[in-house]
């Protein structure tokens, strides 16, 4: 169990870099320190549709954040309509996938990618192993790095994962 205040201090230190990244890319970050939640509005290229990226940071860094796209009220998780449709890129497969009818940002730095959280990966050693998991995949150890990684794949998308 990571103390709430410890997590808050760690996150706010990392957010200094993440905020600078957001300013360079025109992305607004909203940090809710009382509930350890980060809200990021991303605008999809071409469609200009807003997507609502949320990170729950309780237990961070013992465990990775819980990253997901939500509805405009920042509620709900894993609904495919709230996710962009992944596009294959030179980097390899997109991290936006559907697994057992659930949409997930599939990367080692997302708690929801692990099998014990209903994600696809039972081969990454569980969320506590996130800093060493999936070495052949995208690697991100700080919040700014994670945002850049998600934004990299998001910037290639042009539609929602499903129509409704």
């Amino acid at each position, binding site marked *: 169990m990571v103390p709430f205040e410890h997590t808050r201090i760690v996150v706010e230190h990392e957010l200094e870099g993440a905020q*600078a990244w957001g300013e360079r890319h025109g992305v607004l970050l909203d940090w809710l320190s009382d509930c350890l939640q980060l809200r990021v509005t991303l605008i999809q290229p071409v469609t200009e549709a807003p997507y609502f990226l949320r990170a729950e940071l309780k237990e961070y860094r013992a465990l990775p954040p819980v990253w997901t796209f939500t509805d405009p009220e920042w509620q709900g998780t894993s609904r495919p309509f709230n996710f962009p449709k992944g596009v294959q*890129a030179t980097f390899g497969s997109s991290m936006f996938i559907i697994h057992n009818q659930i949409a997930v940002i599939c990367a080692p730095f997302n708690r929801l990618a692990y099998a014990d959280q209903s994600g696809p990966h039972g081969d990454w050693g569980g969320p506590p192993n996130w800093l060493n998991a999936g*070495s052949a995949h995208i690697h991100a150890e700080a919040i*700014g790095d994670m945002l850049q990684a998600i934004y990299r*794949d998001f910037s290639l998308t042009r539609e929602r994962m499903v129509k409704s």
Partner: protein
Amino acid sequence: MHNEHGHEVTIIVFAPRSPHPKEFRWPESLKVGEAAREAATAFGYQAGNPGLQTEGNPPRVLDNNKTLAEEHIHDGQKLELIDTGGGV
């Protein structure tokens, strides 16, 4: 500027984890992947698959196997460190 390695360029590199950029001086003949690895180390990255991309919207991801000259990187240019690994 020239030295024993040929023409050099000064590059400003940003990293998503840091609020402040770092400045590097590299020969134009340096491979992008080698430059990215050096920058990543300087920013404290110990793992991953570092690469570099240009500023702009959309940014252009540089080819790690090409030299800075082949990627037309000029003196004073700003680049951003990225990870080039895939998802899933």
